[in-house]
């Protein structure tokens, strides 16, 4: 038994939980963070699994880390540095490639090489998406109102939204409607004719979802990609020096500076609830802590179905959470390399190695990869998003050596017959074999390989079914539906119990937005 009583206990030291902790601590609240693993960060961790080689084990780029969080918590002072990752290189099976470089003229010339028409369309498309991102972005920083509520606060929220959308021109409104309803393949078909361009652009619409580029609803996720563009040079998009774990470390450092206590190897077994109110937590090892407020940074399944006794929750709420879609669809392969991959379509070491490499030669290729997953297999020829962190930050690998981060889709969480170690390695082999078609020197260059399937991500990182976004980013699970209507405002049916993970609005990615909005909500109404 501990004598300490806290204002708030944060369950889970992932980046969102840490953001909540830092905001609460900076408001002079007594805060305790409890992390099950030996390292902080959850899915935003850097680990040196092969000595000398640092892997951003799961999340490998930051796309939309909220600039206000970076400013509020003074993260650069705590070591955060986001380095640019400007290009995307798509090698093609026919020996050619498609690249989008950091420079506009260079990208235009490259797209023009594939289709003069697409080169023009690319700019027009970019402008429209920019306009839509500007229109949609304020929603990301807003606590979702409850559409079923008649409270003045919720009604005002919807009124503000309505006004906002009335300001859109008809062209933008039409486009937004299409984005909300169409598949990314169909939507991009309206603009472009180059297969590799469509496929590479559509990939941002399928990452983390159990959907293919031809599934309706995927177009909307394309828009998320453009959100990061709005701030222009100020955007918080890129590779984090020291790996993604540095995001978590810098936030934890800010939280500690404000007095938060952070414990690792402290897994929470249960949230204590008395008379419909959360009173504290019980750890796996029996330790107990009490607090006025308990905040879960875990996904909705774990937050409600594992941590809380079902009797403390309304039946229909439990059913909503059970229905919440959280299928894992992706895996991760991290490699230590003796040399960089040498792409046959653009031999040698060049700028492409400092950017992303995308294995997405055509929409058909991606859809076929999805087809296999749809029926319970992992993709034998998967979609991959690859970066070589050691080319951006020399500290990630010993001098002259390299690390490679490969995001792989699809790897269904409910693999036919279930995942085991043999299947995991077979999945790893499929990844390496596929890459070897474009860079034949790769297999020989591998010094160490780490393969993560949804099974591993669930077990090791505590993300249910290995879903990287704490629940799919499909339209029926966004905004006031995330994770469920009535509790999209970071509250739960249990008084004093809050949620702050990516399973809440605005959802997945290393944004910290959920953690921040949850902290603001808690400060406003509970502490």
């Amino acid at each position, binding site marked *: 038994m501990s004598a300490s009583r806290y204002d708030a206990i944060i369950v889970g030291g992932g980046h969102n939980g840490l953001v909540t902790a830092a905001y609460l601590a900076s408001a002079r609240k007594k805060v305790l963070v409890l992390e099950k693993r030996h390292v902080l960060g959850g899915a935003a961790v850097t680990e040196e699994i092969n000595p000398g080689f640092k892997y951003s084990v799961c999340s490998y780029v930051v796309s939309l880390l909220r600039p206000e969080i970076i400013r509020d918590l003074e993260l650069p002072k705590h070591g955060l540095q986001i380095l640019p990752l400007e290009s995307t290189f798509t090698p093609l099976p026919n020996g050619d490639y498609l690249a989008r470089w950091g420079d506009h003229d260079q990208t*235009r010339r490259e797209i023009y090489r594939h289709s003069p028409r697409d*080169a*023009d369309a690319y700019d027009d498309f970019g402008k429209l998406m*920019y*306009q839509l991102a500007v229109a949609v972005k304020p929603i990301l920083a807003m606590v979702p109102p409850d559409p079923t509520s008649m409270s003045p606060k919720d009604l005002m929220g919807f009124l503000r939204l309505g006004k906002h959308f009335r300001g859109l*021109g008809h062209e933008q409104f039409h486009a937004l409607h299409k984005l909300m309803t169409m598949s990314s393949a169909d939507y991009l078909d309206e603009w472009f004719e180059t297969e590799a361009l469509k496929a590479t652009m559509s990939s941002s619409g399928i990452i983390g979802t159990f959907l293919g580029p031809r599934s309706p609803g995927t177009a909307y996720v394309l828009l998320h990609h453009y959100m990061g563009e709005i701030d222009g040079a100020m955007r918080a998009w890129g590779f984090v020096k020291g790996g993604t774990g540095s995001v978590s470390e810098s936030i934890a450092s800010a939280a500690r500076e404000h007095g938060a206590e952070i414990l690792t190897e402290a897994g929470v077994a249960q949230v204590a609830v008395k008379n419909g109110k959360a009173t504290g937590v019980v750890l796996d090892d029996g330790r107990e802590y009490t607090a006025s407020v308990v905040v879960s940074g875990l996904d909705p399944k774990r937050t409600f179905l594992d941590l809380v006794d079902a009797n403390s929750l309304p039946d229909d709420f439990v059913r909503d959470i059970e229905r919440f879609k959280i299928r894992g669809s992706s895996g991760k392969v991290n490699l230590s390399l003796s040399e960089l991959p040498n792409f046959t379509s653009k031999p040698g070491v060049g700028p492409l190695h400092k950017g992303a490499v995308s294995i997405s030669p055509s929409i058909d290729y991606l859809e076929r990869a999805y087809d296999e997953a749809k029926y319970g297999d992992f993709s034998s020829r998967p979609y991959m998003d690859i970066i070589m962190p050691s080319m951006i930050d020399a500290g990630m690998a010993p001098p002259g050596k390299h690390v490679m981060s490969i995001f792989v889709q699809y790897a269904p969480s409910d693999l036919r017959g279930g995942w085991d170690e043999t299947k995991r390695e077979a999945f790893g082999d499929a990844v390496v074999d596929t890459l070897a078609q474009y860079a034949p020197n790769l297999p020989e260059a591998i010094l160490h390989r780490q393969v993560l399937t949804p099974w591993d991500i669930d077990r090791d990182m505590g993300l249910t079914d290995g879903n990287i976004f704490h629940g799919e980013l499909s339209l029926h699970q966004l905004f006031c539906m995330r994770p469920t209507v009535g509790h999209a405002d970071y509250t739960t049916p249990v008084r004093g119990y809050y949620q702050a993970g990516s399973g809440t609005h605005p959802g997945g990615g290393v944004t910290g937005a959920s953690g921040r909005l949850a902290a603001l909500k808690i400060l406003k109404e509970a502490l």
Partner: protein
Amino acid sequence: MLRTTPFHSRIAPLNLAQNWRRWSGYLAASAYEFHHNREYWAIRNSAAMIDVSPLYKYGIEGPDAERLLDRVVTRDVTKCELHQVFYTPWCDDDGKVMDDGTLTRLADDSFRLTSAEPNLRWLQDNALGMNVGIRDISDDLAALALQGPNARRILHDAADGAADDLRFFRLTKGEIGGVPVEITRTGYTGDLGYEIWTDPANAEALWDGLMEAGDKHRILPAGMLALDVARVEAGLILISVDYVPAHQAVIEGRKSSPFELGLGWTVKLGGNWFVGRDALIAEKERGPEWEFRGLDVSWDSLEALYGEVGLPPQLPSEGWRTSVPVYSGNTQVGYATSGCWSPLLKKYIALAHIQSQYAGIGTNLRVEVTVEHYRKKAAARVVETQFFNPERKRSNPSVADEVPA
């Protein structure tokens, strides 16, 4: 590396300060000498050669070529004669300007369109159901502007008199430096001038031919800095500086109609339907909200403002391209988008967007100037945009009549 133009082997060694800038993905010389002053005076006093190859160029050919262009641009293309050149903007459906360029009729069913921004997709989309071929010939055509009072004489020598009688905004064909060229009497300086078009493979021969013939007429290669001053004096608008192309404008307020850019004379509402025509008819009826005008900044006012801090007026020697507020009294009624000190007119001039009710010629307004870190307002008079418009730009004396320089 940025792309280089077909003249690069000739212009690179001449660029003494390695002073380059970007133009549509190409390297373009900002100035060849350490200061652009002599290059400017070549445009106004002898002749300057300016590499304008980075322009976008489209070849439009086929039975419906005239129909397509008549549908796209604001001018009446049916009136464009063989070997005539039209300067014209084109608009989106709302009558907002997307781009501006020159249109040349090369044959009954063949045209060439130049533009500042890519337009392939726009042309293709407008050609739906038409029997017309649209080719991006940007890389297939090297272009050189020969501008200045001695330009005709240089061409007389270089092209064996082929362009002696070439009228303003017309095209002729000839040979320079042993290679076939097309010559149009067009330019971006507001002076007597020509633009010469040839296959990129012939670019170096063309350059050498003109330099050789031009030597005794004091020909000089000129860069963008000199051109920028000349075009402001001539009141010629520049895309993405004086106006935002409609299809790139993120907000409505950034778009401009031809009437608002001083291009009302190019809008032929009496002819066939063209993109934006309905909106432009409506706008013409109610009158445009903005006018595009020249501002003649009062020297006395500048002297007084600088005098307050004990300095004579200090004005930039290069043209500027930033937005500068324009006031009536203390109310902002517009903004200048380009300006320069005119070395020829000895005037500080600017091109500005002015709300219509303040845009009458002769209206006294005030323009912001920064004097020793403090923002002041200098008196300026609203004038026509063509600050400099010499007779020789359009006139056609025979070469023999011209007094040698």
